[in-house]
C-alpha cells in the first residue's frame, strides 16, 4: 500500500534540508545533527534496499507558487503562498509498504526539529470485485 509522507516546515531562508534552517534545528549541537543525518541516511538505504521507497521531491519556496482558482469567466491566477500558515509543505516522500504499521514506523523517523510530518494513505484506482 502506498503512503505519502508530507513534510511541513518553515525554513528561513527557504532551503533544504529544511530542519537545518529552522530555529529548533539550529539550536542542536553538531554531534546531534550528525547523528540525525546518519540515522536518516541509514533509513533511506534501508527503504531503498527493501523496495519500500518509491519517490521523493523537495519543493521550492512557497512564495514562488501561483494559485489558480476557478471563476465563471475562466481561471484566475494569483501569487502564492497558498496558506499563511506557520508551516508550509516543503516536500514529500512516497513509500510503498505491506502494512500501515510499517508505514507508521518509517514516517516516525521523518519527524524533525521545527517541522511536522503527516502520513496519509494514497488512493489507488484498482480494487477487488467485492
Amino acid at each position, binding site marked *: 500500500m502506498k503512503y505519502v509522507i508530507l513534510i511541513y516546515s518553515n525554513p528561513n531562508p527557504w532551503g533544504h534540508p529544511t530542519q537545518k534552517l529552522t530555529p529548533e534545528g539550529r539550536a542542536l549541537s553538531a554531534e546531534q545533527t550528525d547523528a540525525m543525518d546518519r540515522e536518516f541516511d541509514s533509513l533511506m538505504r534501508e527503504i531503498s*534496499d527493501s523496495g519500500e521507497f518509491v519517490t521523493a521531491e523537495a519543493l521550492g519556496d512557497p512564495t514562488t507558487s501561483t494559485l489558480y482558482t476557478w471563476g465563471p469567466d475562466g481561471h484566475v491566477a494569483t501569487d502564492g503562498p497558498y496558506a499563511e500558515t506557520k508551516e508550509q509543505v516543503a516536500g514529500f516522500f512516497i513509500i510503498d509498504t505491506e502494512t500501515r504499521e510499517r508505514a507508521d514506523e518509517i514516517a516516525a523517523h521523518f519527524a524533525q526539529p521545527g517541522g511536522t510530518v503527516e502520513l496519509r494513505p494514497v488512493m489507488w484506482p484498482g480494487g477487488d*470485485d467485492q
Partner: protein
Amino acid sequence: MTSAAGLEDVWRECAPHVLGALVRRYGDFDRAEDAVQDALLAAANQWPVDGVPDSPRGWLITVASRRLIDQWRADASRAERERRVLTAVPDDTFATPAADVASASDRDDSLALLVLCCHPTLTRPSQIALTLRAVAGLTTGQIARSFLIPEATMAQRISRAKARLRDDGARFAVPSTAELPERVAAVSQVLSLIFTEGHTSTVGGELMEVSLADEAIRLTRQLYRTLPSNDEVGGLLALMLVTHARRAARCTVDGSLIPLADQDRSLWDAVMIAEGVRIVEAVLPTGQVGSFQLQAAIAAVHAEAPTAEATDWVQIESLYRMLDGVAPGPVVTLNHAVAAAMAYGPESGLAMVEPLLDDPQLRRHHRLYAVHAHVLELAGRSDEARDAYTTAARLATSIPEQRHLNECAARLKPPRPASHRNAGPADPDDGREAVPPDNGLPCRLPECLAKETVAMIE
C-alpha cells in the same frame, strides 16, 4: 506477418531459457541478466524489420553472449575474466539449439531461475521485480508502469536485488529435494502477488501495456508443468484461472467495480473456469491440502453457481473452516464470517466478526467494517450497518471500493421524519434516497479471495 505483440510473445517466451543458458555457461547472473535485456531490446528493434530468425532462441543467445562478453571486455579491471572470455565464446551447437523445443534442462533452467529470483535473501518487492524481469522477460519500464512507480526506482530495485544475490552467494541451481518445497512455496507466493496486482488493478477496461495477471498465469502454468506433483502449485494455477475467468464481468466501462454477486455470469470465461475446476478436482483429493487448493476450491464453488442466489454457502463455509485450520488469520476469519452468515444466518456471522473489532491489526482495515456492515445489514440492523459502511468507506484506499461502500451507506439512509431528531441543522438530502431497510438485498459482499487474504496468509 506476425504482429508486434506476437513477436514480443516469442522473445519473452525465450527469455528464461536464454538467461538460463547464459548463467549456466558463464555463471554471472547479474551481467547475464543485463545482457539478456539488451538482446531482448535488440530483438524488439530488429525482428519487426528483418523478420523472426529461424531459431529465435539461438539468435537471442548469440546476441546476449556477445553483449555479455563486450561488457566483460569493457571492464578492464577484470583481467582474469577477460582471459576466461577468450575461451568462452559459444560454439554453434550452444548458440543454436534445436528449434525451441523445451528440453528437460530447459525446464530445470526455468525452475532454477524462478527460485533464484525468489531467493529468501530478497524482500518481497525485489523478488517480484526480478521475477518479472528475468523470468517473464518484461522491461524495467513495463514493470514500473504496472506497479505505478517511477522507472528509476524500479531500475534501482532490480540492480540492488541482483547485487544482493551476488553478495550473498545465491546459486543458480535447482534446489535439493529437502529445500525444494520451501523454495517453491516462496515462488508461489510471488506469483500469487503478481496475479493479484494484475487482477485488482485493471478496473474500467483501461488498456494495460502488459497484463500481470496473464504473466502470472503463464509462469504458474510453466511451473506446474515442471512440478506436476506439487498440489499447491496446481491449486494456485486453478485459483488464478477461476478468478481471472471473471475479468470481463468485474467492472463497468466507467471503472466501477461490479461485486461478484451482481456480475453477469454469462460474461465469465467458461473454458477457463472448466480448466481451473478440473485442476482443483485433481489436486484436492491427493496429499496434504494447502491454502491455495482451498482458496481455489472456494472460487470454484462460486464459479459453478448458475446465479448468486444458488451459491452453495454451506460448502463454502466448510471450506473456510478448513482454510482456517491450514492458514489461520484475521482476514480468513472475516471471510469465514461472511460464509457463515450466508449459510447459517447473520447471527453466526456476527459472532465471528465482533471479536475482531478489538484486533489492533485490523483496526484500520476497511474490510473489517465492510464485513461487519454486510452482516449487520443481513440482520436488519440498518443504522449500525450504515455506520459501519461509512467507517469502511473512510478507511478504504481503493477509489472504486470506496465509491461502492459510500453507495452502500447512502442506500441505508433513514427515512425523513425523525421526531427524535431535534438538534442540529436539517439535512436537505435526508430521506431522499431512502430505501426501506428490509427491501432489497444487502450490499454485496467481497468475494473472499481478496488481496489481503493472500497477503495475510503468507
